[in-house]
């Protein structure tokens, strides 16, 4: 009895010792920063970043009252929906194409890896160069091909810049969707299709009744992760326009970066962080509730 007791105690504690390093790492560098952000969101913060004491929802009301915030929030929602939505559709179509057996498929897959592996800053810089009015590569290409005669201004308005940023966002997000969908597609048993062919189903029927339902779990995971990444994506907008002019191409993260590190309004920036987190939390809980419900069925 006496010998057994410390043994079971060790047994009980052991799993926690195994996860301890990971917990310490995340506690210091994720949880503590989260705590700081929440504290600053509810505190008066000086320009130098000193926390001066509780101020209730002052920072939030300042943020919500500013004329820019509505615009920034609208931009963020448009950005997230368009980038995630379109890249999911296009990525899935690309996965369907690459799921066929054909010569050179390996090369095609390797090419699709490129945008996924390349850091976003560099991709954004290239797109910035491509769409430049005076010396951009797109104008040069179209002029050489004889499609246009004079340089076209691809970015006549801030909205046009934002549209290009969205296009760039879609371009870099497609590979992730494509490969997750592809791994889902390849795990589908060929016998389903054979049975459907025997039953006389055509391509679209197979797609709707076999492929889509079976790929859905992989696509859902990809979409949830994408919503989080795209919502929080910083480098594309930052590299191409820095959110200018007058916040018309800002999303929440570029807006809060400027608030914190350019304008010395760290309290308000923290409030924007909290708002962004709450929006994502709502999205994530919708996802979790819907998957839990499905589990019950």
């Amino acid at each position, binding site marked *: 009895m006496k010998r057994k007791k410390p043994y079971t105690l060790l047994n009980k504690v052991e799993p926690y010792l195994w996860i301890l390093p990971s917990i310490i790492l995340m506690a210091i560098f994720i949880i503590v920063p989260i705590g700081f952000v929440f504290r600053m969101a509810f505190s008066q913060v000086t320009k130098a970043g000193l926390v001066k004491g509780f101020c209730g929802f002052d920072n939030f009301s300042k943020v919500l009252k500013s004329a820019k915030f509505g615009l920034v929030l609208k931009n963020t929602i448009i950005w997230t929906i368009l980038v995630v939505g379109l890249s999911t559709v296009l990525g899935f179509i690309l996965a369907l194409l690459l799921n066929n057996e*054909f010569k050179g498929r390996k090369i095609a897959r390797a090419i*699709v890896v490129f945008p996924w592996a390349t850091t976003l800053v560099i991709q954004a810089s290239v797109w910035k160069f491509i769409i430049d009015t005076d010396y951009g590569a797109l104008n040069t290409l179209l002029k050489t091909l004889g499609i246009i005669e004079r340089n076209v201004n691809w970015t006549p308005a801030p909205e046009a810049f934002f549209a290009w940023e969205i296009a760039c966002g879609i371009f870099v997000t497609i590979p992730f969707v494509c490969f997750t969908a592809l791994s889902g597609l390849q795990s589908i048993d060929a016998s389903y299709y054979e049975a459907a062919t025997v039953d006389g189903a055509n391509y679209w029927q197979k797609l709707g009744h076999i492929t889509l339902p079976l790929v859905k779990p992989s696509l859902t995971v990809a979409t949830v992760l994408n919503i989080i990444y795209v919502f929080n994506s*910083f480098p594309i907008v930052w590299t191409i326009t820095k959110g200018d002019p007058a916040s018309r191409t800002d999303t929440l993260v570029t807006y809060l970066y400027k608030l914190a590190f350019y304008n010395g309004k760290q309290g308000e920036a923290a409030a924007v962080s909290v708002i962004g987190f709450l929006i994502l939390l709502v999205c994530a809980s919708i996802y979790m509730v819907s998957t839990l419900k499905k589990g019950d069925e």
Partner: protein
Amino acid sequence: MADNIRINWGKLLSRVLLYFVVALICLFILYPYFVMACTALKSRSEIFAINGTIFPINVMWSNFIDIWQKAPMARYMLNSIVIAAGSTAIAMVCGIPAAYALARMKFKGQTAFLGFIIVSQMFAPVVLLIGIYKVMQMFGLTNSLLGLIFINAAFNQAFTIWLLRGTFMSISAEMEQAATIDGCNRIQAMFKVLLPVAAPGIVTTLIFIFINAWNEYTVALCLISTDTLKPLTVGINIFNGYNMIEWQYLFAASIFAIIPVVILFMSIEKNLTSGLTAGGVKG
């Protein structure tokens, strides 16, 4: 007979269409890289010429040499390697035991821990930058590579644990149990039996974290102010000044930053995607 021929025509057509569409998409994906390569080989005057050309007229290989003198490129590259390797090492040292515990043991708070890992994904470092900056000030790690290493390791914990737990769970525990009966303790059993079998999954995870840390931009931009401490992603913007952008140098330097990761990524792509979705679906 006539029927047969018709079916073959349809098949041929869809085949041609498939090749055509895939080729078109590949060209489209490669276009920015093509632009990057061509521009990196042009002279400044050629880039800003009124009637520019697609290909460089005078191929300036010297751009690829000049960048090493115009900017501390070797330093940037070394910093990127140190950050990526350091983050990977710490993420693995912390992540392997955690993933092992989650895959092989049952304990209270297991679900809560997994839940926390998923929620932690919701906080991109950008959103927490102000808080991260404060923590770094506390430890005196602002403007240091060590600070970046810790941040990258921490924000990659979720992926590390997620991917490794999936790998470990797909491997039967029987071998380890047999090893324990033979007198190994848990740690020995893990090192001698599990880890060698799990090597492909571990390598995939390792490379993925390395690439993530190598490509990280935002935190480095915010924390590092000394030029010689910048990683490539931030450092190459030395050519991207407010008044004039040296596109040829920017892209020449970019190519050096891209090539290693693209090659690494190709090597793990297949394992990675199945690992990511498996971890997510099984939850």
